């Protein structure tokens, strides 16, 4: 089984692969130390991994165990998720470098030509 995971999810998996069985609380502590996540963020990501079937959890203490090996994990590709209502609209509320829209090739080509000619003209 191959499961596509985001970097954030791989971070969680890394901790589990290293430690074997580990309580969620402990994972949150490790990640807080390593990458500065707050507890809620870690739990959110762990939950996502459980949903995707990468982690198996057992009570008590929310013990987490990996269901896939390191080799079975795959990087997620961004373009698969952006075509939803909310994703890819960062520029609405946050200062992002570019807007969400894909620009046709010919327009970009035209812009490059413009930059080249204007740049030379100075």
């Amino acid at each position, binding site marked *: 089984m191959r499961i596509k995971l985001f970097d954030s999810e791989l971070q969680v998996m890394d901790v589990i692969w290293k430690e074997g069985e580990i309580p969620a609380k402990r994972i949150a502590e490790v990640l807080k130390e390593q990458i500065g996540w707050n507890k809620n963020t870690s739990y959110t990501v762990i939950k996502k991994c459980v949903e995707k079937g990468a982690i198996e959890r057992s009570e008590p203490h929310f013990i987490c165990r990996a269901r896939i090996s390191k080799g079975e994990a795959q990087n997620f590709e961004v373009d698969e998720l952006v075509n939803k209502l909310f994703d890819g609209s960062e520029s609405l*509320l946050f200062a992002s470098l570019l807007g969400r829209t894909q620009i046709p090739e010919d327009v970009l080509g035209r812009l490059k030509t413009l930059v080249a000619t204007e740049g030379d003209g100075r």
Partner: protein
Amino acid sequence: MSFLQMSLAGAIMVLIVTVTRALFMHRIPKKTFVVLWGLVICRLLLPFDVAAPTSIFAIGRHVQGPVGPSMTFEAVDRSVLENMRDIYSWHYAQTMIEEQSAAAELAAPVLAGWSLVTTVWLAGAALLGLFFAVLYVRQRRKFLMSLPLENELIAEWLQRHKLRRRIRVRVSDRIATPLTYGVFSPVILLPKHMNWADEKGLSHILAHELIHIKRFDGLKKLLLAAVLCVHWFNPLVWLMYMLFNRDLEISCDEGVIRQFGEEAKPQYAITLISAQEQGAYPPLHNAFSKYAIEERIHAIMRSRRASFFGILVAFVLVAGIAMVFATSATAEVQEEMSARIIVLTDVSEDDALISAEEAATIGRVAFSRYFAAFAGDWDDWEDITFLMTFSPWVNPHTLREWGVGANGAPVWQGLVVVDNEAGMEHIFPFSFFVHAETGEVLRLQYTPRTAYALLMEAVRLDGDEAIRALFRTWSETHPGLGLGKYDDMFIGLAAQAVEAFAFLDCEIVAIYVQGVRAMASGPAGTVVVEYAGGDFVKLEFLLVERELVAVQYILG
């Protein structure tokens, strides 16, 4: 100033700024546009309420209370009266109108008409607000899952660019373009899949984001979204939303160019274009922002360093548009007044659903019941006649005391006239009000006879002569007051009060006496001013120590 007028005035400013932007984009500093949009936002959010002193209607509540012979003006707080003196200024007129509309909202039919519009507006605002809130929370949660970045170049850059707020740079595989989030502890987030080898490009991007942080652009974007939620029904506010967002970027680009120098322009432009190429977003149909990048590249490449002339133009523009913004408040008030007057003249006797005869019958039944309650049976009901007067309005006192008869809720006012045993007609000191649309008896009241003598006199006569006659009568029944003084004084004051309306720029046709309110110990008058075009304004006067302290409300 009403909310719709704010939105309309804002819309006009959006058009002005949009045209300005098209004309001067390449000639004046880009920051100018950000400032101009700021002015538009002020217009859209600030109601321009002049904090007027306690209104005349507050005094009215003190003074009028239950109308009775023991009322005196001594009860009125002097300091309040002091504030009231400047009745001729438009601020004051505006306060009156707001009181008036507040009163109008009390009346149920008016409220029902408004509540639908208000409900739709609130629902739209809530819906859009919810969309933004969900978007914000989701994206923030996504950003929080970002990872720290091990990069010497960036570590060194952070060392060199320290602000009071600690900046962090992190990386995420869930975004396609660099962005900044967090106002108080800002984070520059870089997409994992970017060209990390391009050091020059990286330094441009970091410089760009740093400028956003320094200028609190994140906060501006949130404010802008809030404005859009409130004015969602205004298409020009959507236009502003799009253009302001673009101008934040364009202005930010300008800052980068200033920092790196003119010769960095092509390189910076190429950085943007290739970032756009790398962006893995599938095409989304968004006609508005489709060529935002084009506008940006043009702005970067075509703009020259602002000349002295360009900066001068920028200042003139900001000052000019700020002035439009400030003065529109005055103009709007005038519009509001004339508009109200026109609306309110719609009511005429023909509109009454209940005829005078029907109203008289209703009044007769109510009156007999009431009378029977304290005087037993009355044998000669046939001897009673009812004088019915149609009032498309009742005075604010009636509205406040009984909660009825606001503008647009016409009443029949009935006066009970009894033929007594001696065969002498006299006015019985009872009157009543019947709602001219529902037939409901609004009020039966007992009123001192002299007041009705004045009222009847006033109904019979028009114009200046009526005022004189009125006060002649008044002085006969109140010997202490003296005829001559109040006569001339009242007319003079009426003229002054009419002047207060001069800014309406209407030609005054005539002044009619509508009636004198039965104020037991203080003269209070009502004058109706007719303007060319058939509009009416009713002015109410209140005299305290022979000075006109307050005035007027509008109706038609």
